[in-house]
């Protein structure tokens, strides 16, 4: 076994952003998670991110609309320039609506496949639209890790931030399975989250965190509030415990353990300084 210790520095979270039809925005979500507000009724319609040109906004796949909305919220709340920030986009399944279209069309008449749907079917379509819309030429990534996709995205983001000493944008999003895919893929509803991880404290810092990998059986991190539990069927639901903790900074220090795999977790210790 290696004796090399973790060299993971304390990092800082800015600009938590959140979007679900019942919790369309971080202020609403934070209030609902802490019992100081209620989910909106009727639920909000699909977001319409301003990063895209008006014509693109209407045509954008659900995953692109969702992810760009929270990405822009996080950037605005962090007070940073989107073009400067490397970005990590995380989605367990990518655009399930386009996957259903692709597989259905291929099964019927493959020669009818739409070229636009095809280029929107790549997992990195959302981060591609983000970098194009914001003029961001920094490193951009797109990853998946099944039920641990948010945790894997946060690990990738924190690692990149710590290794290169620069702030990194993390965006997590998933959509409902549609069509025949819904008989195997369990994701339901729309859910997107985002935040910026910074190597140093700023006036926009919401939380500091120490982080480590913990081997062994992973404890299942479950959402506590009814508002968060109602979103637990989405494939990005592993993000909910962290956002609940970020909603309640009065309760810091707090520990959030996110499963990364069957026998590995990402442990975060959130604090004020």
């Amino acid at each position, binding site marked *: 076994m290696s004796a090399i210790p973790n060299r993971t520095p304390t990092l800082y979270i800015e600009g938590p952003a959140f979007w679900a039809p019942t919790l369309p925005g971080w202020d609403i979500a934070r209030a609902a998670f802490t019992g100081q507000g209620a989910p909106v009724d009727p639920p909000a319609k699909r977001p319409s991110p301003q990063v895209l040109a008006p014509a693109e906004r209407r045509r954008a796949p659900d995953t692109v609309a969702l992810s760009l909305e929270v990405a822009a919220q996080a950037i605005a709340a962090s007070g940073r320039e989107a073009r400067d920030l490397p970005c990590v986009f995380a989605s367990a399944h990518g655009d399930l609506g386009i996957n259903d279209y692709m*597989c259905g069309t*291929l099964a019927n008449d493959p020669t009818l496949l739409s070229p636009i749907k095809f280029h929107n079917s790549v997992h*990195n379509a959302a981060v591609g639209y983000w*970098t*194009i819309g914001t003029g961001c030429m920094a*490193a951009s990534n797109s990853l998946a*890790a099944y039920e641990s996709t948010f945790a*894997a995205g946060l690990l990738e983001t924190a*690692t990149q931030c710590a290794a290169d000493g620069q702030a990194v944008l993390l965006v997590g999003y998933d959509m409902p399975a549609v069509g025949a895919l819904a008989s195997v893929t369990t994701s339901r509803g729309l859910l997107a989250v985002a935040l910026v991880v910074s190597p140093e404290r700023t006036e926009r810092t919401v939380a500091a965190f120490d982080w480590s990998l913990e081997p062994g059986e992973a404890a299942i991190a479950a959402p506590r509030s009814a508002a968060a539990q109602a979103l637990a069927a989405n494939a990005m639901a592993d993000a909910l415990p962290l956002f609940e903790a970020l909603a309640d900074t009065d309760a810091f220090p707090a520990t959030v353990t996110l499963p990364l795999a069957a026998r590995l977790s990402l442990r975060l210790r959130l604090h004020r300084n």
Partner: protein
Amino acid sequence: MPQRITPLRISAFTATSAVGVGKASLLAALESSRSGLRANDFVDETAGRTPPAPLPTWIGRVEGLEDLRLPEALASWDCRNNRLAWLGLEADGFMEAVAAARGRYGPARVAVILGTSTSSIGETEAAYTRLDADGAFPADQRRARVHTPHSLSMFVQEALGLEGPNETLSTACSSSAKAFASAERMIRLGLVDAAVVGGVDTLCGSVLYGFNSLELVSPQPCRPFDAARDGISLGEAAGFALLERAEEDGAGDGARDGAAGGRLLLLGYGEASDAHHMSTPHPQGLGAERALDDALARAGVAPEDIGYINMHGTASTKNDEVEGALVKRRFPATTHASSTKGFTGHTLGAAGIVEAVISLLALETGLLPGTINTTMLDADCGPQIRLEPARADVRLALSNSFGFGGNNCSLIFGKDLQA
């Protein structure tokens, strides 16, 4: 500019593609300029009851996947992509090298970071041709962990008995190149002691008909950098590398194969975005150049230090125009550059690892591949691009991978003769 990084040792590596299983097949094809492409004979599981005529194109298909069976304990992962992953893992003693690393460090201290563009979507396509009366997947296809992008990395982690961080990168054609970057960061921070990187992509209806719909597929074997090039040839491949700290005692034994006993190293990487267009590259190649500059800075080397460049060179009109101009303006005329897409086809998310393996073989054996199928180089290309293979002792190699969405990654490998 990023800071210089401490090199990582590549203690084992392998690739399986249309030219064959493992490094020896690949090297033999590169030495003899033998292409693995064939007229499209891909059995399209998605074609339904009345299959249309196969698309008139050439493909880099891996022989025997149709009949390959996974071991019983892994059988629930069965799909073409995971079969190819298994075939690739079994080559060149790679599984044994990983088992040794697992023993040295413990299973939780070895990451699995793999790239793929389509993972097992071919299996999902097949399920859609056999839906039941309710429009649901048939019982044998209700395998949620197969019909998802992370299928590949979950399967490989289980096959290797590892318990460390496990992620699937999916940035189209740069996916498996970027796995090296993510792994380097994790090792540098001490989160893990070693990482299995690489990627797997397989032929499927989505990519064949998808690239065809974009009019990017050639009706003949692809001709990278040819004046008359007319599109890509799609291929499939699996490739893996094991990364460890260079200073680790007793790490791996792959280095014994190295030329003059030299250790093979990951020296640098660069990742950048075009911020231009979803499916065409930046006209001046600014994202590609930024990836190149970052890779040079992390490696602490200059363009004239690079002995071999494995170009992305897809044979699409635009990629080759932009990348050819970049190499022409940044490298000396003496640099040997080539695209190996004519050997393997464009293996999409696996292209980064396959071409990393080709670059490592160039360092190890001195074989600098040519660019096959191409007969007349585009006049806009520089003198760096070579059609014929050559032999030279090179110390540093660069591999470029550029993907849809304007996602660029450059890798720099080297060998350390002092070891």
